[in-house]
């Protein structure tokens, strides 16, 4: 017979207000195996914990039930308490009589009865609790950061500054990401490149950071502390060791293609560096558009290269490395405008996306920072900005708010008034959302000082009218239809998750939401973690956010990584699934439902009668298992059990409630 002690917490009046503690204590005393019952105003306090320790020793308790708040709150605290009194920490059971009882009931009588039955349940389970032991696992103290935009750059620098090694993988030929495309940043109007490029250089020069550009993550295996990742280093066709970045080849290459960095406003060559401040500032050959790779003739770049750095024979290289933790910082795509034909984007050259307009503002952009119409090169005197294009639109676009557009549109309106004297901005909006430090003041500046007219309403259609554009919309505040003849239209395009976010999520065994943004472990309290231990999120890949928020999240992710690396070793969670060999039929239903890839096949040899037979059964990798229990439900013969939550324990709980 087990010797169970029950400790009932008042939690001040939180529990005692709705639950008659004396009655509960009296009832607990009659339960099977309970040899000791006590109560305390605050069990989690030092006095409360000392009381438990003393009782364990004095009454030789071997199982402990604490009736208090949710195990999410203090289970770890109390596990340490019972451990320090010489018991296995998993001998503890918590009856949640606060969140699941006193807080949600008003009737004291009913609340008391429910508290009693919750304690009876916990007592029944505690009697069957077994000692469980965590396993120590080594840690590979090198982090992988996926994505070389501002989020990845910040995370890599912060991790590296704590002294740990970092590998940064970027798909494009250069670091920089979206922030490199921006001109000024709100609300201070400091130049994006001026604050970003020094960080890019820091990454390249940091002794703890290895930079892999033109590279992608191919395969991810392993678990917290011990990931094995294969990186595909795409053939750059330029030897980075030999190349001096002189740019000779860029000028002579005869093949031209729309520049991704310039949002297609101008053309780049097939051998290219995306932008002048690129890091590394050395080109790559885009083989899909290179004349030599498409026709077999050309080799102009090789002829002009003074360093003999061009290598057409270069092949993709696969590199496999071990990592202890991963930061995902893959950024976003702008929303595709296929469903927004009414705005005449693509039909008229002076209808631009906000990111294209951003390039017109930028001094290193196609117009040298002058706002000029793509159609005739004249400065626009009137510009209509249409907000929420693809955002807050359940019918055709994203249901969510892209969060940054109100602010960057205010910025565009301000910069327009500065760059084109006498010009006028009209902004069509649904709501103007300016939550952020100094944001509202910035928006106010757009309409008070810079003369932007804000019109609350949607635009129904944009009609090309000769050189001008007729914008037809509604002003919902006056109820009037509005028709404006303007020189340029700028569409504030929404923010989408990366088109291939789902594939990466699959490789990493993390989840995405319905919009393909990576899912955080908890929307409020664990916004940087994923459900998979050791993998963290930074930046817009988790959801729309602006630069300060992105940087804050990246630094937070870095701290999480450093916290892991600062430990000597990791303790595994002992509440993992366990396969009972003789019951396992080997049909592997468990493997199909495991979200963490923790179950694999294993061939075992067994004696059947007189002969030995081999057959396959399921095997749990305890390092990967997160203890969710999905496999225990899928297993038809009931061969798989979650330690600490075995089928027998759960049935005992059900019996305690129902019988």
């Amino acid at each position, binding site marked *: 017979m087990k010797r169970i002690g029950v400790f009932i917490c008042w939690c001040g009046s939180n529990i005692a207000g709705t639950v008659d503690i004396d009655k509960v204590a009296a009832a607990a005393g009659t339960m099977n195996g309970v040899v000791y019952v006590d109560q305390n105003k605050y069990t989690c306090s030092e006095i409360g914990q000392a009381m438990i320790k003393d009782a364990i020793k004095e009454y030789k308790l071997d199982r402990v039930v604490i009736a208090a708040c949710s195990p999410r709150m203090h289970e770890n605290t109390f596990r340490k308490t019972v451990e320090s009194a010489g018991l296995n920490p998993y001998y503890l059971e918590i009856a949640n009589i606060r969140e699941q009882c006193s807080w949600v009931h008003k009737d004291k009588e009913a609340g008391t009865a429910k508290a009693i039955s919750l304690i009876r349940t916990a007592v029944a389970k505690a009697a069957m609790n077994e000692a469980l032991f965590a396993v120590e696992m080594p840690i590979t103290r090198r982090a992988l950061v996926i994505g070389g935009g501002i989020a990845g750059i910040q995370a890599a620098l912060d991790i590296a500054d704590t002294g740990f090694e970092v590998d940064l993988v970027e798909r494009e030929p250069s670091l920089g990401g979206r922030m490199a495309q921006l001109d000024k940043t709100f609300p201070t109007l400091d130049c994006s490149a001026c604050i970003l490029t020094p960080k890019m250089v820091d990454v390249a020069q940091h002794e703890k950071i290895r930079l892999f550009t033109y590279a992608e993550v191919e395969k991810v295996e392993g678990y917290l502390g011990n990931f094995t990742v294969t990186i595909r280093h795409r053939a750059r066709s330029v030897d980075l060791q030999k190349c001096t970045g002189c740019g000779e080849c860029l000028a002579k290459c005869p093949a031209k293609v729309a520049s991704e960095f310039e949002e297609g406003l101008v053309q780049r060559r097939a051998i290219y560096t995306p932008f002048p401040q690129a890091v590394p500032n050395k080109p790559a050959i885009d083989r899909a558009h290179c004349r030599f790779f498409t026709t077999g003739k050309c080799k102009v770049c090789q002829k002009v290269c003074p360093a003999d750095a061009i290598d057409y024979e270069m092949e993709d290289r696969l590199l496999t490395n071990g990592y202890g933790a991963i930061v995902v910082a893959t950024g976003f795509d702008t929303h595709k405008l296929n469903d927004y*034909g*009414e705005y005449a984007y693509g039909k008229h050259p002076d209808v631009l996306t906000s990111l294209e307009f951003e390039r017109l503002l930028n001094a290193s952009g196609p117009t040298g920072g002058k706002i000029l119409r793509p159609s005739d090169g004249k400065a626009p005197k009137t510009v209509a900005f249409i907000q929420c294009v693809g955002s807050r639109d359940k019918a055709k676009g994203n249901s969510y708010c892209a969060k940054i557009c109100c602010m960057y549109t205010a910025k565009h309106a301000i910069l327009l008034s500065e760059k084109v004297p006498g010009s006028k901005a009209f902004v069509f909006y649904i709501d103007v959302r300016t939550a952020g430090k100094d944001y509202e003041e910035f928006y106010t500046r757009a309409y008070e000082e810079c003369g932007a007219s804000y019109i609350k309403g949607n635009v129904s259609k944009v009609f090309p009218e*000769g050189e001008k554009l007729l914008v037809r919309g509604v002003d919902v505040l006056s109820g009037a239809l509005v028709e404006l003849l303007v020189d340029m239209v700028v569409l504030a395009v929404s923010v989408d998750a990366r088109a291939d976010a789902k594939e990466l999520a699959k490789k990493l065994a993390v989840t995405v939401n319905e919009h393909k943004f990576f899912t955080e472990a908890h929307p409020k309290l664990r916004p940087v973690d994923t459900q998979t231990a050791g993998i963290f999120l930074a930046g817009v890949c988790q959801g729309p956010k602006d630069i300060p928020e992105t940087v804050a999240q990246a630094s937070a992710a870095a701290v999480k990584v450093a916290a892991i690396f600062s430990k000597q070793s990791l303790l595994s969670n002992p509440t993992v699934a366990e396969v009972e060999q003789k019951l396992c039929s080997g049909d592997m239903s468990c493997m199909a439902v495991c979200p963490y890839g923790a179950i694999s096949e294993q061939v075992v040899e067994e004696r059947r009668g007189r002969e030995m037979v081999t057959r396959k059964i399921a095997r749990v990798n305890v390092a990967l298992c997160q203890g969710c229990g999905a496999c225990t439900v899928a297993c038809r013969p009931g061969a798989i059990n979650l330690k600490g939550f075995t089928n027998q324990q759960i049935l005992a709980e059900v019996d305690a409630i129902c019988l």
Partner: protein
Amino acid sequence: MRYSYYPGCTLKTMAKIYEDTALSTAKALGLNLTEIKEWQCCGALYPLNTEEIFSFFSPVRALLQARAGGEDKLLTLCAGCYNVFKRTNKAVREDGELRRKINDYLEDDYIGEVEVVHYLEVLKNDVGFAFLAERVKKKLTGRKLAPYYGCLLLKPWAEMDLDDVENPTIFENFLTALGATVVDYPYKTECCGSYLSMANEDIASAAVGRILVSAYKNGAEAFVVACPLCKYNLEEYQKELFAAGREPQLKLPVVYFTEILAEALAL
């Protein structure tokens, strides 16, 4: 492929030329059209008040008559009929409560199974524009034609699903197949004023004026339409604007696409 054919009221009266040229060109292209027996009004307007189920009886009965004929698809010409039938079908298919009420009243079992197609759609999908181009006897080379979609063929886009609602191409590809020069102008999918020609002529007149000027400025010599009401409004308000000496002082002929087709096939 066999088609039952639903003419609708206007095609037997004001738009007789539309029907005549449609039937003759269909015959020339080897399409088998059978006019449905004892057809009745399509309802003229799609009922927007979905609680008012009586307005659905007319189109559903017309669709039931088509079903009784046993042909593969129901071909329509008038954009208005096409719009009403297609949307009624979708509502009947997707709204179980509406379907039950309609069938209880009509004592029938219609589930939206009659496939409704527009003649333009048949030319594109069943005949094929490439095949059509081969059958052209008199190419319309040099003719600058402005396709005018209006609204009923395309909108609401989620229900009509005929073509891209803002940048449609079916009319353009049809005219290209006949050898004509297609005039692109931004007002081709704008409303012609519709029945406002009866209630508020100023609005209809202004709508036509915009379409007219835009097409003219882009070099159009004539409008090509698929809807009798569009044709009526475009023609009448042009006349009025012209007669009243109001801008624009223009006159562009308005023809049905079947007339143009008949011309190209030398019928």
